[in-house]
């Protein structure tokens, strides 16, 4: 049985897996990190997005053995140890960017990768295009887009605190 050594949210793990074990199965079933969701299992919905060596990937479409030696970040690894939320998480809360919440972990992970790759800032249109790999059946996307637009200002240090959502 292959064994996989990887770092997940900063902690090293060595886990025995089958060749066919998906990264999402390793995370959810072996490490009990169930914040990463499986919506479709067919690479469409993006509920399973995590970061592997800083890049967003669909963890339902990568084998655990392919992630051997890499550093993985899941939704559980975003908040500070004292519980302070990552600016993207905070923005999703402030802007009511979720309803049932099923897509949210993947949305947040994709959004962070998107913002990091665009240090000059993203327009509303670019944010919508950048979320092409994530589906949400509840929100209509509008508040998700607003949350990401607000979070990028904090993540790039252009604003010290998140702009409050207008009620």
């Amino acid at each position: 049985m292959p064994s996989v050594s990887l770092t997940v949210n900063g902690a090293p793990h060595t886990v025995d897996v089958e060749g066919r074990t998906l990264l999402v199965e390793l995370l959810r079933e072996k490490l009990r990190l169930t914040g990463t969701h499986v919506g479709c299992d067919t690479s469409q919905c993006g509920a399973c997005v995590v970061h592997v060596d800083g890049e967003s990937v669909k963890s339902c479409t990568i084998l655990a053995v392919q992630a051997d030696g890499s550093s993985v970040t899941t939704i559980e690894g975003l908040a500070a140890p004292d519980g302070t939320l990552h600016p993207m998480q905070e923005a999703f809360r402030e802007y009511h960017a979720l309803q049932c919440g099923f897509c949210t972990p993947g949305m947040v992970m994709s959004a962070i990768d998107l913002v990091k790759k665009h240090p000059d800032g993203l327009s509303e249109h670019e944010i919508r295009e950048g979320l092409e790999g994530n589906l949400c059946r509840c929100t209509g996307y509008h508040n998700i887009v607003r949350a990401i637009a607000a979070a990028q200002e904090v993540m790039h240090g252009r604003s010290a605190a998140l702009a409050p959502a207008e009620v």
Partner: protein
Amino acid sequence: MYDFAYHKPSTLAEAVGILADPEARPISGGQTILPALKHRLDRPAALVDLSGIAELRGIRREGDRLVIGAMSRHREIQTSPVVGSAIPALARMAGMLGDTQVRNRGTMGGSLANNDPAADYPSAALGLGATLVTSGGRQIGADEFFQGMFSTALEPGELLVSIEFPIPEKAGYAKMRNPASRYVMTGVFVSRGPMGVRVAVNGAGPGVFRQPEMEAALAANWSPETVAGIRQDPDGLNGDIHGSAEYRAHLVTVMARRAVLDAG
């Protein structure tokens, strides 16, 4: 998905050795083979991960050619300054396929070797007159490489090593995506350069093909209007729940015009 043995060789020779077993399959980015294995469309005894092989990596300019290692991921091609300056249409194409997460994993070699009729790169390879270099030491011209739906000139166990693109004066690409699946309904790649004027169509037929009538017209007069009046024969094109053969034939003309506009 059925279980399999997993190998991650660090040299091309080692990979080819394992792939001599007809029950073994290569895996590059995995964005096609993993969904296929989940559907149990195949049951390989072993998967050979190509991501640790240095010989398959790298993007470089060699004189009048752009050479792309088969394991180059879409995201690398999309953002490579070398690709962006040599063949910007190819970088744009890489940025338009799949979604961000697919682009972070999927590879050019995987896509070309799979030759899905709805894939993007086959029309770039055919439309630029690329040469495909294999582990068997063969240099296969794009005109011979693509042999219809999911079929190529690769022998069993033979791997793509790199793809050599002659650098064109101009090249452009346009496609219509299925609004739900985002796969290509019809795409057209056009180029003018050392290989002459080439027009390649993907998504519309069972495999990528050239459009000789448009090539001749563009060779005489390179302008979007030149192709706007040329009709594609729908005979032999794909007709399915997403669109009839006639619709796809119509799209060939529309996308060809947009591709010439894109090329400038």
